[in-house]
């Protein structure tokens, strides 16, 4: 069966510090991978998606970036965090663009 991991679960970082969130998927190959952000009381905002190694599409211009160094690894990064980057970050995978997504446990980021 497939599982998706995210870490860390919670993170408190000062403004201006770098960020690296990691997501890995087990039990499948060549998944579509997604990063979402959810602000308090809001829906999910798609940040990045990837259909393969090194292939990243950005949905929203911002100071975040994503990379996919391996087939089942997706990393969300920032060089300098802003207060507005606080939120709940969710990674998800799907077999392709026409199938449902499965979400990881999420990382709650607080930028102080």
């Amino acid at each position, binding site marked *: 069966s497939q599982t998706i991991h995210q870490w860390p679960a919670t993170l408190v970082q000062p403004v201006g510090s770098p960020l690296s969130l990691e997501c890995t998927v087990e039990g499948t190959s060549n998944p579509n991978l997604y990063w979402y952000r959810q602000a308090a009381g809001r829906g*999910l905002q798609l940040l990045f998606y990837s259909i393969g190694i090194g292939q990243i599409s950005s949905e929203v211009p911002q100071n975040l970036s994503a990379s996919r160094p391996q087939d089942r690894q997706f990393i969300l990064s920032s060089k300098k965090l802003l207060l507005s980057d606080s939120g709940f970050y969710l990674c998800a995978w799907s077999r392709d663009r026409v199938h449902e*997504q499965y*979400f990881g446990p999420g990382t709650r980021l607080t930028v102080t």
Partner: protein
Amino acid sequence: EDKVVQSPLSLVVHEGDTVTLNCSYEVTNFRSLLWYKQEKKAPTFLFMLTSSGIEKKSGRLSSILDKKELSSILNITATQTGDSAIYLCAVEEDMRFGAGTRLTVKP
């Protein structure tokens, strides 16, 4: 701009009540509509709807798509406290999510 609108934003009911949640969309390239339930952390998949008028059902939950009205409803009958969650709908191909409906079921 493509958008997905859910209503109501929040709803408080008592156990045993029936609820109907709404999702309307305006997207350029509609492919499917998905419903998710989010309790504490990760959303979990409920339904995927691609064809108009065909009801999907799972226990006390059911959902139907109306492509003519560009909308979908999610029904929950005989609600239980465990149904309390945020219900999210999303539309492919952009995986654009609505803001969600926060459902609270009181004992």
